[in-house]
């Protein structure tokens, strides 16, 4: 109730007359709100600013200095500030102040003020991305500043179609969010959907990219991520050129790319830099490892506890010899291993790098070997779990690889209860689920479901770039001339 009254009081002030007093009281007379009077050319100016948000250097050299030496009556001709806008209401003025602008008011003319850009920047230097590593890709990663991120993106996407739309989200604390797309390339339907969903966000405050992701993704009850989070400008730019939309959130070094389909998470920048044979091979390896990581533990359980007749006899003997000392069922055994692996994984994130190596040896090698020798798990189980975790590390995207962890346990449980039939049930459920997912209207499991052979060109394989002249992606207008290798025809010689 108190909160409600408070709010109504604020909105009253919002509508109140535009004056310095009102602005000050709405900002609760906070101590770092400073004002300064300047007498110049028979006029009195008042500058209002939040001390902690502005760059004093800029304020002194660009605003105070020219003001004191002013000869002309028109202020706008005298100031050096690069961005000047007029504010006629308290709300605009306050938002400007909070963005690091200073408010300049001419005494006697209380109806309007000028907002001058003097914001301080705390940008860190652009550095190499930490998580999404590549071998040959650009060594540039996004930073925490919105403007700088747009700058980074624009430098690799030079196009007059490059469009930026700004939104201010959050009702109690505000965050600036920029929507970026290439006009004429991106499907207008998708842009419309994104805009609509962003406008409907009514959160009190935006903490990170995750908050926006939660609000705008199509399906929440699913282990599969439907938006791509990236920290690489080159990747974001490549996706923009394919007709995706990028969302940059102020203060967050991760940029949201949407719509993202299942296969988007298997692409990396390196695929496009290396020759296409290698690129396609890596794609295959990633997809294969995803499937392996998903069903290998379940298959192992089904094999050893139900259908040992499927595997060759020699293998049965060798598996049996180490399993006979283990008192647990294969399912329990794998669960113990998986859980201890999750512990290791979680622990290694928090550790400083110098300790991590020791930890890896102690945690992985010593515990693993000791567990087998103590008869807690068998060699077969150990191999399966190790292979699974290695395969899940192959995944270039963190969220996609965590979907394996979430889906893996139910599959193991099903395999432990029904054997192959259980795996069939599990796989069928996953397929049904995948066939229904969409990401901003684009089918999630896209080139496979619905089957579209044309789009295989840049999903399970990567064909040479000159061959990608006819494929849909998210762009209805995607066109590329076929002629990049026309020189080959001109150069080719008849052997006789």
């Amino acid at each position, binding site marked *: 109730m108190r909160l409600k009254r408070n709010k109504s009081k604020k909105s009253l002030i919002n509508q109140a007359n535009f004056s310095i007093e009102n602005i000050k009281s709405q900002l609760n007379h906070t101590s770092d709100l400073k004002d300064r009077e300047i007498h110049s050319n028979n006029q009195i100016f008042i500058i209002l600013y939040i001390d902690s948000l502005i760059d004093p250097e800029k304020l002194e050299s660009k605003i105070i200095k020219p003001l004191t030496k002013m000869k002309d009556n028109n202020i706008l001709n005298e100031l050096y500030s690069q961005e000047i806008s007029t504010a006629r209401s308290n709300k605009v003025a306050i938002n400007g102040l909070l963005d690091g602008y200073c408010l300049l008011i001419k005494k006697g003319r209380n109806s309007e003020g000028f907002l001058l850009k003097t914001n301080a920047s705390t940008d860190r230097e652009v550095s190499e991305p930490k998580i999404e590593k590549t071998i040959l890709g650009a060594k540039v990663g996004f930073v925490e500043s919105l403007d700088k991120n747009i700058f980074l993106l624009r430098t690799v996407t030079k196009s007059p179609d490059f469009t930026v739309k700004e939104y201010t989200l959050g009702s109690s604390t505000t965050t600036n969010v920029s929507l970026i797309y290439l006009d004429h390339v991106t499907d207008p339907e998708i842009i419309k959907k994104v805009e609509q969903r962003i406008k409907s966000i009514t959160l009190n405050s935006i903490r990170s990219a995750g908050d926006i992701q939660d609000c705008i993704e199509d399906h929440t009850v699913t282990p599969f991520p439907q938006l791509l989070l990236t920290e690489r400008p080159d990747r974001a730019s490549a996706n923009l050129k394919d007709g995706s939309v990028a969302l940059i959130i102020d203060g967050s070094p991760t940029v949201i790319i949407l719509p993202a389909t299942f296969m988007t998470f298997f692409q990396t920048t390196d695929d496009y830099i290396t020759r296409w044979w290698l690129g396609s091979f890596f794609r295959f390896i990633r997809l294969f490892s995803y499937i392996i990581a998903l069903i290998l533990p379940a298959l192992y359980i089904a094999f050893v506890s*139900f259908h040992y007749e*499927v*595997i060759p006899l020699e293998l049965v003997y060798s598996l049996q010899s180490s399993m006979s000392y283990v008192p647990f069922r294969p399912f329990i055994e794998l669960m113990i291993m998986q859980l201890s692996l999750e512990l290791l994984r979680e622990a290694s994130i928090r550790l400083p790098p110098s300790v991590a190596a020791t930890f890896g040896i102690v945690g992985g090698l010593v515990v693993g070997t000791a567990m087998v020798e103590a008869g807690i798990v068998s060699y077969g189980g150990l191999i399966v779990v190790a292979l699974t975790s290695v395969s899940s590390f192959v995944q270039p995207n963190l969220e996609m690889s965590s979907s394996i962890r979430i889906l893996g346990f139910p599959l193991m449980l099903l395999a432990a209860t029904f054997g192959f039939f259980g795996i069939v*049930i599990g796989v*069928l459920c996953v*397929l*049904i689920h995948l066939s229904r997912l969409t990401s901003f209207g684009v089918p999630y499991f896209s080139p496979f*479901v*619905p089957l579209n052979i044309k789009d295989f060109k840049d999903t399970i394989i990567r064909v040479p770039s000159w061959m990608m002249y006819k494929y849909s992606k998210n762009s209805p207008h995607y066109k590329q001339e076929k002629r990049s290798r026309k020189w080959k025809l001109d150069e080719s010689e008849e052997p006789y």
Partner: protein
Amino acid sequence: MRVKNRISSVNLFFLLVQTMIGVGLLSLPHQTHDATGSDGWISILISGFFIQLIVLLIWLLCRNFPNLTLFDFSKVILGETSGTVLNFIYIIYLLTVICYIFIIYADTLKRWILPETPVWIIFLILFFLLIYGSICNIKNMVSLFSFLFIFILFLFFITFLVYDSYTDVRYLFPIGSSGGWNILKSTSDSMMPFIGFETLLIYFAFMKQSKTISALKGVFFAVLFVTIFLTYIVILSTVMLSPEEIKITPEPVLYILSAIEIRILSRLDLIFLSFWGLIVFSTIISYSFSACMGISKLIRIKHKFAVILSGTFVLIVSIIFYYMEITLLEKWLKHLGLIFGIIIPILLLLITIIFKREAASTYEKN
């Protein structure tokens, strides 16, 4: 009917192939052998050709009523009351087919993979999968089926591993030994594995241009594909197994595969059975989607509740039949398939032509 989601000719291909290839696959060589001996493949080919004609007739019927399913145009053709009765009978028929598939599925699983598991648990799982799979729109269904098509190709590839010294082409000869009349007579029996084409009465309504001949293209290739696939399976079993063996093995394909041992996998039949399990499920989903569409039109409830209703019905009936008499439904379906797949559509077509029935309102633009 206002059609929200349209399907293309290619989509119809996947829909039809997945609906037609189903439980009949495993026991097919055994059944054809009972009827015609080593000439089973001829009768399958003839039935395949025959089905093409039937499908053509169904198309001729449906093109009079664009955007209308069987459940809508039956009322136009037969009048309100008798149309409703026909719809009701059709729904019962479709549900009976699902019951039959449930029973065969559970029975096969029990005999080959899960001998100790109580059957009602398998039924219960099938029930949940049916409900999860059928609450969707036709676009979802088509996309799922087009992916599952890959598994049909897998089935093909698995059977390639079979060729070995066991094969004896002489089992096929002399061709036509069982007599031309016998072969023709058995085509009515070999029509059984083809059932699934009657769902076209419903799916044609979702076509973009059901009037043009291009709508028929997907259907034509689907029936062709199924015919070739089934013929291949029958020929494979005839070549691999001696006539005496086929007589006593209810699932010849699995029997053949179980004997094969390649280096890394010893029991191919279990792999085959797993893929087969996926494909049968698409048949179940397709049938239950059609049936639920009828139910929701008949008693005006939402699709979701229709699915739950029909799922419960199927669960109860199939459990009852499983413990009572397994083969009873199969005997019934042999005749029911003929009646509902062939005779009734032909009758409807005749009435439409003779009495010049036309659709009152069609949302052609939509």
